[in-house]
């Protein structure tokens, strides 16, 4: 149970301690951010999850971001609903959305839901700032934080390093 509760924290430290580049970390974080924003239970969320796992990016950073933005996302439902509603009610786009909806698996995509498409739009809108900001953070603060974490026993415990050392020793 404790392991389950500490899992997100461990994921965060694991993201910092891997040898992935800041680029991989920030892309993973950005994909996770989009995944977190979008309501789950549709093919968009599933595709984003598969994408996060399938491409060579930092999964841990992505999962942490997904967890964080899954909590933040519902707070933005008012905004994303208005955004999605405005888009879905655009007369010029009605035919396009109707075509998507009529495709096999179309209703599973979730494009007909105001919050799904609104949150996807919002997430895509903040993709580059998120990528840029996270890249900056991982590049500048990643190595010092990793060193600071490994210095303390609790940090090592959280990353699981001392368990590995015990079994190796």
């Amino acid at each position: 149970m404790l392991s389950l509760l500490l899992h997100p924290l461990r994921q965060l430290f694991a993201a910092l301690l891997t040898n992935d580049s800041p680029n991989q970390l920030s892309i993973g974080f950005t994909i996770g951010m989009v995944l977190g924003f979008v309501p789950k239970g549709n093919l968009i969320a599933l595709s984003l999850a598969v994408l996060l796992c399938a491409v060579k990016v930092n999964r841990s950073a992505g999962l942490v971001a997904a967890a964080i933005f899954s909590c933040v996302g519902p707070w933005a439902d008012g905004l994303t609903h208005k955004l999605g509603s405005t888009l879905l009610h655009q007369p010029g786009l009605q035919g396009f959305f109707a075509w998507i909806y009529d495709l096999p698996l179309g209703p599973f995509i979730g494009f007909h839901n105001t919050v799904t498409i609104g949150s996807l739009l919002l997430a895509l809108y903040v993709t580059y700032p998120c990528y840029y900001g996270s890249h900056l953070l991982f590049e500048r603060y990643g190595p010092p934080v990793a060193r600071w974490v490994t210095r303390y026993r609790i940090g090592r415990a959280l990353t699981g390093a001392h368990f590995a050392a015990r079994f190796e020793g």
Partner: protein
Amino acid sequence: MKYFRFQYILPRIVLIVALLLATEVGSGYFVRWGLIAGGEASVGAKIEIGQVETSLLKTRLLITDLAVANPSSPMKNLMEADRVEIDFSSPALLRKNLIADYGIVSGLRFSTPRETSGALPDRPTSPEKTNQENWLAPLAKEKAQGWLTDLESRFSVDIRDQLESVRLAEEMAQRWPVKYQQFEIAAREIKADAKRLEERARVARKNPLRNMEFLAQLPQETSKLRRSLRDLQAQLAQLPAELAADRDAVLAARLQDEQLIREHLELDALDAQSLTNYLLGEQITGPVGEAISWIRWARQLVPARGSKTPAASGRGEDIFFPGSKRLPDFLVRTLRLEGAGRMGGQPVQLVGVVRDWTTQPELHSQPTTLELTTTGGMPLSIKARLDRATEVPYDEYFVDSSGMVLPKLKLGNQGPLRLSVAPSTANLSVRIQIHGDRLRGSLQITQRGLEIEPTLPPNLLGGRMQSVLAQSVSRIDQSQTEVTLGGTLDAPRMRFTSTLGTELAQAIQQAATDVARAEADRLVAQGRQEVDAQLAKFTGQFEKFQSKLAGEMAGPGEIIASLLGQRGEGTPQIGRSPFGQLFK
């Protein structure tokens, strides 16, 4: 390609294929779990499923041994089915819709008993919403029962206590003997006085000088005695007139008593409608109530149009675009029903088809229809149309039957009058329309070959009326009953008329009148006999008294006459005195 993790992707693809294969084999368990959980949540009672077989590739669903418990009666199943087989449309499934062109439900049975309770542990049993007793005008039943109770009470009350003639006759029986006795005592006293006076006179005449004073007073004493005797005779002479007056009073009272008896047994008219409600109320409200429960259940299966579809995710709103093919989440275009059951105690086989059954009627242009026919003892043709074309749901039901065999019926089970109707044949026609919540409809039953046997409680009235009523009722051989439905689904109202009620009311009224008339005649004759006997007894007693008293009074009269020297004369001779004789 350097961007993809093939060591991650390939195992997942293998895993997905394995999962699909496993789903093909084991998805039945999940579907079974889902059906039970979802079904129990919507029905509110246990749902039991023997086995579920599904095939994602063939998009086919097979359910065996399905039992849906009745939430209102947990020891009964709402329905049971041996086998439910539905072929779903694959393209519709890819569009998140469960749409079946054809399905079959076989081994269908309704209202079957359960061995264990079908109530859900965390949900109380929901009783029927309507109280069928209130469907009828509440006073009607009491009115009919009141009439019968009143009839019974009229026969059970002893009216002899209220008869004036009997009271007068009894009062005469007490008064007149006392009067006779008083006369006899007075007569005896006069006789004794006369004898005493005669004796003293005889002694005095032997020695007149010594009894001069007595002899001087003897005429006065004798006159006084004669006056007493005459007064008594005068009173006696008035007795026949007094007795005749008493007799006349008794006869007049007897006439009034006869009128009272006839008025007491004069019956109010029995209201045919009240009797119809009393006798047929339970027989009609039971099946109609059951039918309305089924209609309510059907309304749950085919709900009204929803104004707005909530988002499946619970967040935001699902928008449906003009021109897109919007289909209902669940639609069965044709569902064949085969089964058996019992209707009115008769085993029946049923075959039918449900068409265009959907839980989202606003997304389907066709109304849901049901065509069901039963064969066996109760051949019925049931047609239903559940139209959700507008916001206000509209349902109509037609039930027709010709020559159905009605089982033996017991009418008026809770009251003093019970009728046993032997199995008969009937034609049935039912028309029900429900617009929104408003209920409107009619039910007509024409019964032929009726054999009705009345049963009354074995008391004073029952014993007398049984045979008379049986004879009256035996003339009724057919009936026509019409029920008019109104009110709402939750508070239905019904009013019914029946020739059976009217004819029964006439028969019962006639039988009761005959019995009451016979009872009145009997009471009048009995009263007349008693009074006549009493009067005859009086007449005899009076004659006897008269002759006895005449004998008693003859002696004093002779004595007084001899003392006054007027033997044989009733009136004294003025001027004659004992002294005249003395000096003769």
